[in-house]
């Protein structure tokens, strides 16, 4: 790596049903806010993270589209896609571009717009994160695949569902104080377990909601950020890994190998261990992904991640505050934008701008972004 890489601007919309805004309008809104926050008025390249614009908006070529609507004619721009993990992967690509010295400043903007389509259309589109020909053709859904994991986890480790279903309860509590969150209301464990089953044993309130949103980051080399007097946070580790795409083909269903591999690389690059992390953003598209991710990232032994949830060690006041603005479940999960929102939420904490949810003396944050059922995982580590 030639250059130290920093994030020096953030911008985002609230997550929800934006009936009055198009995909491009959301992307432009977040991008302009991030540029304004950074103080830069020009960037050298744009990475647009998005999963389903082709299927849901029948619109591809988002790089040129966003560049056009930002008035940035001529600069290189492209879409980065790794299913629900597109955001983390786009940050990783931006990190590589800036750390190489080739670009000095880039814009990463994540955007997804789901509310224009019916739930069954979105369900089919989301399922394209798995093998369309041999898995999705059977009628399996993305929720269903995570439900297979859930049942296997409870059975193997003898865990009660209550110990895992508590995670969304903690996240909803955090989202109460997050102005950009989709769901700013409290829920109880009883609410979760009495909500309708979507794919047994996964209940509705254990699944991240569908929503629209866009979030953007201005990423630059440290020197540029200094010249521009930016409020910058350094990316000290960035790594991505893949796993066998289909869950059913993995010998160990309960370890997301790509999380293990990407986090080991990112820790090594950053020169830190899990105990040095102050804040965590895990990709909890479904409640079960929280305990598994806590284990695979090195915060709990295999089969014991649920204990951190049961003992509320992941709450704001706990040992390892996790998803401090509500995570995918309560802040929201606009697929391609989600990894960017994770960075935004962590940066609000690291800048001491997290309001009532501020974690004291937060210095190091780890972000985990999952594509598919762990087919791709990116881990980015930020430091203030």
């Amino acid at each position, binding site marked *: 790596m030639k250059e130290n890489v920093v994030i020096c601007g953030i911008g985002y919309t609230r997550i929800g049903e934006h009936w009055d805004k198009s995909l491009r309008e959301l992307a432009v809104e977040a991008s302009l806010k991030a540029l304004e926050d950074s103080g830069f008025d020009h960037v050298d390249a744009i990475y647009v993270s998005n999963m389903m614009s082709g299927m849901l908006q029948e619109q591809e070529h988002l790089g040129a589209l966003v560049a056009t609507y930002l008035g940035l004619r001529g600069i290189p721009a492209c879409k980065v896609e790794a299913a629900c993990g597109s955001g983390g992967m786009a940050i990783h690509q931006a990190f590589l571009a800036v750390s190489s010295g080739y670009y000095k400043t880039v814009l990463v903007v994540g955007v997804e717009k789901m509310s224009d389509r019916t739930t069954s259309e979105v369900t089919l589109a989301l399922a394209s994160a798995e093998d369309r020909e041999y898995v999705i053709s059977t*009628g399996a859904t993305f929720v269903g695949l995570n439900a297979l994991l859930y049942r296997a986890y409870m059975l193997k480790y003898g865990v009660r569902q209550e110990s895992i279903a508590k995670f969304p309860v903690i996240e909803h509590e955090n989202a109460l104080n997050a102005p950009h969150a989709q769901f700013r209301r409290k829920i109880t464990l009883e609410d979760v377990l009495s909500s309708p089953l979507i794919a047994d044993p996964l209940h509705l309130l254990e699944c991240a909601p569908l929503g629209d949103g866009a979030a953007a980051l201005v990423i630059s080399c440290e020197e540029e950020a200094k010249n521009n007097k930016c409020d910058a946070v350094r990316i000290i580790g960035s790594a991505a890994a893949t796993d066998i795409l289909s869950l059913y083909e993995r010998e160990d269903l309960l370890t997301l190998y790509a999380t293990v591999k990407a986090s080991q690389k990112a820790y090594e690059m950053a020169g830190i261990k899990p105990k040095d992390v102050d804040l965590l953003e895990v990709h909890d598209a479904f409640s079960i992904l929280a305990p598994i991710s806590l284990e695979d990232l090195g915060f709990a032994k295999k089969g014991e991640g649920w204990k951190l949830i049961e003992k509320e060690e992941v709450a704001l006041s706990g040992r390892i505050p996790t998803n401090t603005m509500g995570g995918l479940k309560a802040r929201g999960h606009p697929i391609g934008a989600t990894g960017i929102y994770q960075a935004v939420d962590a940066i609000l904490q690291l800048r001491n701008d997290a309001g009532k949810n501020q974690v004291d003396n937060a210095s190091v944050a780890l972000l985990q972004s999952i594509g598919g059922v762990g087919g791709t995982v990116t881990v980015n580590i930020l430091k203030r």
Partner: protein
Amino acid sequence: MSVPRYWRERVTKYRLIGAQCTNCGKSFYPPRKVCPYCGSRDLKEVALPRKGKVISFTVIRVPPAGFELYSPYLIAIVELENGTRVLAQLTDVDLSEVKVGMPVEATFRKYLEHGPSGIIEYGIKFRPVIKGEDK
């Protein structure tokens, strides 16, 4: 799914054809050119065993576009007798009767209809092995 896309996969799907790696001995479904476990390119196509057991299962209650008529239905990871895993629907069984470890066997079934003049997709589902009929 488009007609040629469905047609290309018919043999693999109808007959449950997989591949076995001559290097590490593992077999997998569907067949491919490189072993996903050891990277060897020395593979041979094999007809997979038709019996196995349920590793994990779920009930799909919010189906994707096209499957609305069939919901709720069961999806399972099945481990075949030689260790190969497949993902398929379970059929001929009550939702409440399925258990992890349950012995199942492959059966040829309808998957999906594409409207009144479209194709009908077929493939393998798994049903419980009934004692006494188990030969």
